């Protein structure tokens, strides 16, 4: 079954003078998904966002957004974005900014006013609606940026580092806001906080040096269905017994972290929970003491695992 894509970038190259920012990047974002764009500084994430929004033009390659080439008039009200480092006019109130942008999306004045207040409510800034943008803190400006991206509830929302500079409370609320849109809107998020992305996203792509290294469902990337890890308390380390008694299990032991990493091939007859039960039974029978247990590896660990390979 082919999935309908909200974003479809193929073999995209983009240069800024001597800097080759994107080197054949691919990106496929299914409609309705919450998608994470992961990569180090300078990997090309912001350039990808810029191409999707039509701010930047690809040198070569294909960019299809919501079924066509980037075009502001086609995007009108269908695409929202939080552009990185874009500033608001300092002497205009945030309500005026939002009303202006809502009207540019095609809303009539009264609707634009109510929509501006609604999105300010999403980021808890209703009380500051009449404050000039120049009088806001960095975090408040970021929240206004997020708010404008949600004006009119567009089909596709691109958020470049949305939680950078936000306090924990607001970052938490924003994650909840994004999670709440799952299945209704397509949201692409870039962030350096991989725990955050793992918690809210369905799919992800790793970008490194302008190329897409790997992409897929978070569950697949983190091997949530094909790997378990068990942390043992000081005491017996029955690795050989485990290898001998549990079939088709790849076992690695990290003595420093006292963590067993167990890989297996999942099947309908042998899902992760079956393996967990089997492994625990053997470990407990051998006298091991278990401190912690988990499925897969964190997105952060997965990222760190693949990052050196790209050097």
């Amino acid at each position, binding site marked *: 079954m082919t999935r309908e894509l909200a974003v479809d970038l193929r073999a995209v190259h983009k240069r*800024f003078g001597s800097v080759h920012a994107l080197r054949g990047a691919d990106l496929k974002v299914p409609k309705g998904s919450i998608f994470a764009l992961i990569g180090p500084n300078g990997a090309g994430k912001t350039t990808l966002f810029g191409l999707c929004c*039509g701010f*930047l033009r690809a040198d070569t390659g294909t960019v299809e957004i919501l079924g066509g080439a980037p075009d*502001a*008039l086609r*995007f*009108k009200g269908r695409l929202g974005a939080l552009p990185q480092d874009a*500033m608001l006019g*300092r002497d205009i109130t945030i309500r005026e900014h939002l009303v202006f942008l809502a009207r*540019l999306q095609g809303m009539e004045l009264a609707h634009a006013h109510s929509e501006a207040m609604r999105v300010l409510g999403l980021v808890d800034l209703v009380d500051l609606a009449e404050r000039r943008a120049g009088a806001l803190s960095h975090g408040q400006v970021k929240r206004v940026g997020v708010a404008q991206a949600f004006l009119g509830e567009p089909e596709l929302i691109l958020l470049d580092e949305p939680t950078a500079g936000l306090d924990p409370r607001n970052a938490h609320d924003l994650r909840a806001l994004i999670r709440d849109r799952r299945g209704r809107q397509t949201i692409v998020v870039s962030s350096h906080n991989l725990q955050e992305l793992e918690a809210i996203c369905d799919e992800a792509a790793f970008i490194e040096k302008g190329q897409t290294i790997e992409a897929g469902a978070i569950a697949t990337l983190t091997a949530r269905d094909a790997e378990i890890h068990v942390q043992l308390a000081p005491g017996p380390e029955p690795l050989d017994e485990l290898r001998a008694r549990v079939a088709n299990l790849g076992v690695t032991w990290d003595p420093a972290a006292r963590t067993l990493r167990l890989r297996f091939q999942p099947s309908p007859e042998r899902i992760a929970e079956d393996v967990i039960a089997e492994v625990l039974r053997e470990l407990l029978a051998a006298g091991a003491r278990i401190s912690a247990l988990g499925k897969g590896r964190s997105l952060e660990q997965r990222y760190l695992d693949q990052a050196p390979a790209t050097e």
Partner: protein
Amino acid sequence: MHVTRRGLLRDIGLIAGFDLRESLRTRRALVLVLLYLLIAASASGIYVQIMAQIQDSVATISGVAGDPQAAAGMAMVQDEGYRMLLLFFAGGDAALADHLATYPPMVLVYSWISLAFLPWFIALTSYDLIAGDLHLRTIRYAALRTSRGAFVLGKLLGQAALVAAVTGLGMLPVVVIGAIYLPGFDFVATALALLSTWPITVVCALGFLGIVTLASQLCKGPGAARAVAVGLLFLIWIFTLLPEPLNRLELLSPWHWKFGLFHPAIDQRLLAIGACLGLCAGYTALGYLRFRRRDL
């Protein structure tokens, strides 16, 4: 979604309105008004001083001679000198010179000085029309919601409205200074003449605004945009000084057309209006060729 021409016009209006509001809030408009009032007051002051000196000279000559005929003769010389001056400014076009003579002299002095300063005034105040938004990336919020063409036209319209308002307010010192310092000053005639030159000033300003919009679309930084705007204006001013056959290039200069805007013959006036509007559109479109493809 089908985007109608009406939708584009609406976007242009919204951007122009927002730009004007921002100009008012940032007190940019206030600074522009004050600068222009200074220019207008200076022009009026210069005129008042010249008139006072001429009247003193006439009084002295006629007083010493004690001869009314001498005073009448001096007035004739003045009239002839004034006509020759107008003929010079009109480029030898007698019809235009005669028509200019129907304006109160103070209005002509103000208009001439105003049109001389306006291009540089526009270059030094509107250079960041687009480049400022590019520099701060503010443009990205709008570029997601409307076309780049609508953005440029909206900004141009906003600046044109601002220039129109500023030049309109610039007429106030002329009538105030004239009423205070000139004996027998005809307030109504001067005010009406000023109002009739206002659209001429605005149309001429549009030609220069087109050049500045071109510069602002070419550059990403406001500093570079200002330098390019002033450089382009200087280049286009040089066009008016070139010998034949290069002097054809002066057709590309709004300076060349400004006299035609005052012409009594309607075809000459329409030609000049069309040329200024065409230059505004042409220079803006030239910049847009780059702007529509550039990274924001």
